[in-house]
């Protein structure tokens, strides 16, 4: 103790800035997010996929419209056509969430992060905030552009709809929020599995493999299918619900419940586990 009292003390060169701590952590995660060039490439790929596939489908339906019999014309849902690309792009948005977390685990950087900010749940919340904000902004712009461009093409055959059409605005917002839900689920799975390949596999099973096996008319198959995100977003982005489709409320609950449950599990695990 005497030696401690005798030694000169360091002069503080650093003074605290008067910003909120949560804001600091979000700003920190935003710096991390935008300072890796691969993130930009992945996001751009997602946007091109979502926009491009929707455009191709709308163009295909518009060019075949004149030759289609009335039965097949009735099966075409102009609004759903605009958002077909989102069904593929969702995987890339999930990957954005996954990589935000697993990148730190695979490099070992997570220990630097947690040694600097030992309040781990606050770090997770900040990462979730950044991923949500970016995904929502990019998703909303992409959804608006996909809708506008797709409906413009379909309008050549007078089957396009306008923004004022019932359900159109809801579909656009739902598409953006769906991407937020998917990327947050990816982020949470990244925490739980800590490995990009494993977490992405889990995402693919839930988003793609599950729905592709669930075709049938028995009640339990329909229930499970309606509990998967794919049917939920399909319902919200369609003008005409199909038989046994979930209600709008059910669809919204399904979309929200995946990130909520997985993030809760991630928050529990991230606090208890050795880093």
């Amino acid at each position, binding site marked *: 103790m005497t030696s*401690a009292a005798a030694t000169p003390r360091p002069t503080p060169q650093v003074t605290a800035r008067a910003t909120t701590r949560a804001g600091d952590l979000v700003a920190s995660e935003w710096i991390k997010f935008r300072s890796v060039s691969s993130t930009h490439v992945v996001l751009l790929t997602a946007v091109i996929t979502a926009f491009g596939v929707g455009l191709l489908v709308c163009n295909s339906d518009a060019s075949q419209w004149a030759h289609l019999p009335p039965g097949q014309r009735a099966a075409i849902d102009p609004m759903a056509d605009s958002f077909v690309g989102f069904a593929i792009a969702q995987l890339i948005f999930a990957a954005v969430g996954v990589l935000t977390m697993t990148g730190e685990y695979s490099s*070992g950087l997570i220990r630097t992060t947690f040694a600097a900010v030992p309040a781990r749940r606050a770090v997770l919340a900040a990462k979730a905030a950044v991923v949500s904000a970016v995904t929502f902004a990019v998703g909303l712009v992409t959804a608006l552009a996909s809708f506008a461009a797709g409906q413009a093409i379909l309008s050549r055959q007078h089957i396009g709809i306008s923004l004022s059409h019932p359900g159109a605005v809801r579909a656009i917002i739902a598409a953006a929020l769906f991407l937020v839900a998917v990327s947050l689920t990816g982020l949470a799975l990244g925490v739980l599995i800590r490995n990009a390949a494993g977490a992405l596999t889990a995402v693919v099973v839930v988003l793609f493999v599950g729905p592709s096996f669930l075709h049938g008319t028995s009640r339990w198959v329909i229930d499970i299918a309606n509990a998967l995100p794919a049917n939920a977003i399909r319902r919200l982005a369609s003008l005409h619900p199909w038989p046994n489709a979930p209600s709008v409320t059910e669809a919204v609950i399904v979309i929200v419940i995946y990130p909520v449950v997985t993030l809760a599990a991630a928050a529990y695990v991230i606090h208890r586990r*050795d880093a």
Partner: protein
Amino acid sequence: MAPESAARGRKRLAPGRGTVDRMIEVNGLTKRYGSTTAVDGLSFTVRPGHVTGFLGPNGAGKSTTLRLILGLDAPTAGTAMIDGRPFRGRRRALRDAGALLDATAVPSGRSAAAHLAALARGNGLPASRVAAVLEQVGLAAVAGQRVGDFSLGMKQRLGIAAAMLGDPGVLIFDEPVNGLDPEGIRWVRGLFRGLAAEGRTVLVSSHLMSEMEHTADHLIVIGRGQLIADTPVAAFVEQGARSHVALRTPSPAALTAALAAGGGSVTPGPDGLLEVTGLTAAEVGDLALAAGLALHELAPRRASLEDAFMELTADSVDYLAGELS
């Protein structure tokens, strides 16, 4: 005391923290992974104003102990405190303690400046600290380059910069010398001594004994997760391998008898030398003169830290080998 404390700013004025400020206290610390015990009832205190070397053979539990101190891993039993409280749960920890744990754990796609800016921002530190620490470690010129393109030595410097970002009272470095060139090693020794001279607590782990001899004032040596020594460097050398006096004489038999009678213990050394323990060089010279025997060479030999370390950790290393076989 009071004016000094006031000068050190708000964050270290929290009540009840005066005596434990900047101290690392480890008490009965134990970490088991299944049936393997990595850290076994470890207790020690690291005090400010010194460079403390944290030594042990590979696999002794050094890195695990450092992770436990930083709250990254949870102990099976015991406690680890910095400033008198656990590290876990703090939000702005860089102001309390900075650590370099693994120089290769870096974001390869990010620039050095962006990496440090993210850390600084998360702890509410001004952006000016990033430029300051980059300058301090000599990386200012490559601040905008991808960290993935850095050499191991540059990554060590980046890790040291990150540890110093919050201007903390406690600094922890795990094997910081790996990958540094001779100029870098000289620099890092001076840096650690300077940080300690400013009144900070500096804990540096290494498996290289020779490195600690030039860097540390105090040593904590562990083997198989247990404390072997907690001592000033000089005392460690004394305690580990005894110093001896080397001499050369034309009449070894007679001198051996004379020195034995005087309380010394003589063993034949390499190259015709005799090695004497239990007597100083002056006492050996006096005894030879009294016996009328000629000395052709007389030199005190100090055991190196390396020797002392090998001697002290031999048991723990042997035990490990025995257990595995």
